[in-house]
């Protein structure tokens, strides 16, 4: 990410929060971004600067190698690290077909790799 360029646009990330036992709740975070920044960039920024309790699984950080940051973005399944941000509201949700753990984290582990 460039540190000398200034942000041009703002994404309003509407994020589904909470665990399986809690009523559905969304929280919106505004993230000013540069062209080319990804949804994962925004989520990591939120964890570091706004709310460290946001649960989101990632490992390789935008190398498109670990495939851990899979989630629902604007109603479609995708990787946060390869999905570019856009100006305006973006709906960020956990995978609907996996057991919800909390926030954006679902049980995506192979069954024989769980504790």
């Amino acid at each position: 990410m460039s540190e000398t360029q200034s942000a041009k646009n703002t994404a309003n990330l509407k994020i589904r929060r909470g665990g399986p036992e809690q009523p559905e709740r969304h929280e919106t975070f505004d993230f000013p971004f540069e062209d080319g920044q990804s949804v994962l960039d925004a989520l990591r920024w939120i964890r570091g600067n706004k709310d460290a309790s946001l649960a989101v699984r990632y490992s390789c950080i935008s190398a498109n190698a670990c495939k851990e940051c899979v989630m629902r973005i604007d109603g479609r399944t995708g990787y946060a690290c390869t999905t570019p941000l856009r100006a305006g509201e973006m709906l960020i949700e956990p995978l609907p077909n996996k057991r919800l753990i909390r926030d954006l984290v679902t049980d995506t582990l192979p069954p024989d790799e769980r504790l």
Partner: protein
Amino acid sequence: MDQNVGQYLETDVLIIGAGGAGMYGAISAAKAGANVILLDKSIVGRSGATIMAQMTVAAAIGEEEPDDWRFHLKDTITAGRGLVDEPLAQILCEMAPARIWEMEDWGIGWARSVAGGNHITQAHAPGHDRNRCVYVDFLSTGPASSRTLRNQVRKYDNIRRISDLTVTDIVVEDGKAVGAVALHLESGEPVTIAAKATIIATGGLTSMYNRNSASANMGGDGFALGLRAGAELIDMEFVQFFPIGHLAPRLIGMDPIMWDPFRYKLGGRLLNGDMEEFTQNYGTAEDGKYVVTRDMATYAIVKEVEAGRGSPHGGAWLSFEHIPKPDLRAAFGPVIDRLAKVGIDLTKMAIEVYPIAHYHMGGLRVNDSLTTNVSNLFAAGEAVGGANGANRLSGNAITEAFVFGELAGRGAAEAAKGQTMPDIHDSARPYLEIITNAGARTGDGPNPTSAITELQKLLQQDVGPFRTGEGLQRAVAAISEMQAELPHMPTGGAIAFNQQLGDWFGLRNMLAVAETIATAALARTESRGAHQREDFPGLDEAWSYNQVIRADGDGLHISRGEVRQLS
């Protein structure tokens, strides 16, 4: 306190970290008949450094041209600037060909040259005296390695894989490693694992720097685990910066070190902000091939930027504009299309690069069986210190993941054979308490997640590729202040998948490791390989020894160790 002591597991061999070295270790330990627990703080076989690697693996298999492991060893020792642990490097180079062929048998699919008689292709990389580096096209070496090892690991019923489990401490009884305690991130529960032998395969520490090529979990965990368990660390001041990490334009979904294979195959030109070649002013001219070694290139780029001749984003230009389009296409096929999608046409534009933290030469001090000074505690892969001295030769990182992984797995299985299963219910208790206490700390205040960002900036600035006594002293003081704050930092309380609590344990490790790097770097008053002191330029022969660090209740102890040489 009536605490939750969580699950209690038992195994012959416990492997901490499931990247290349950890998976290779699990396979060889299982093959030797041991029961294995292979765990990862992220997902088994998907985290760590191996899967990130897009480029090459050095091994003297002599497919491209005649070669011998002794030539590979000579190049490794030369690159290491007088500090290579030669017996370890010999193991690395001598055993490498067997691992490459084993991976071939397991179906990795090394790139082949059909025209030249259907042999495995070996590319040239800087510092090698001949074409020695195998790879999987296109930029798939790491993912293919991980996939191949994952498939092998799954074949063994005696390997239990566990993901999302963060080891927080190794349990030691009478100078012997007897297992570990861990935090299960999903539930927040502590877990105890009794083990006859333990292998640290957690990789390096590059995500401690804010410009890095690492995955999120390369925070130096294994070095801190070892240090707290009483193990010695070696060469901690030698952090390798990768000279041409991607800087601009922004790339999504690609590894920031992806330009290296382009350089191997096509050369390319490094240019300053005035679009002029400049590395010749720092010792080595570009000559159309990739010959400038990593420490030299890092130095040249940082100095050129400091002199005000950087590219617009504060780096150097890397240009392939002089390479004909068909040649680019032939060398990189689908990668050219992936770049086109993000608006990068290499025939029409240069990209910007800058040095990023890439690899750690230092690590756990081991003997030729990869055992640390703590009995039954082994190290494998990048976590091992010494084999690469002050500067790692290109292509040796995955090689050591394979070779040291295989060897440590075998050694740990052997060590486990003569022992009864330790009962660590009592000895694990104090370590379990650290987990329950940390997990209970709610409230406000600076949180560990943002403190990690702060530490990354600090290390980049003052313990980065170029160091001064003043900057290092500043770093040591700042690290000590953060260590004092650590026990009071809130961790978010009892919530599922509490990454903030995970970050607290990550920060705890990072601070312990940062202190060792800064302390060793401050002590070494010379410049050598990846350790460059602006106030002590030039290599000083009097410093031709390794610095060894251990910790006890009084803090760190740093001493000098003879560099082990082959007789």
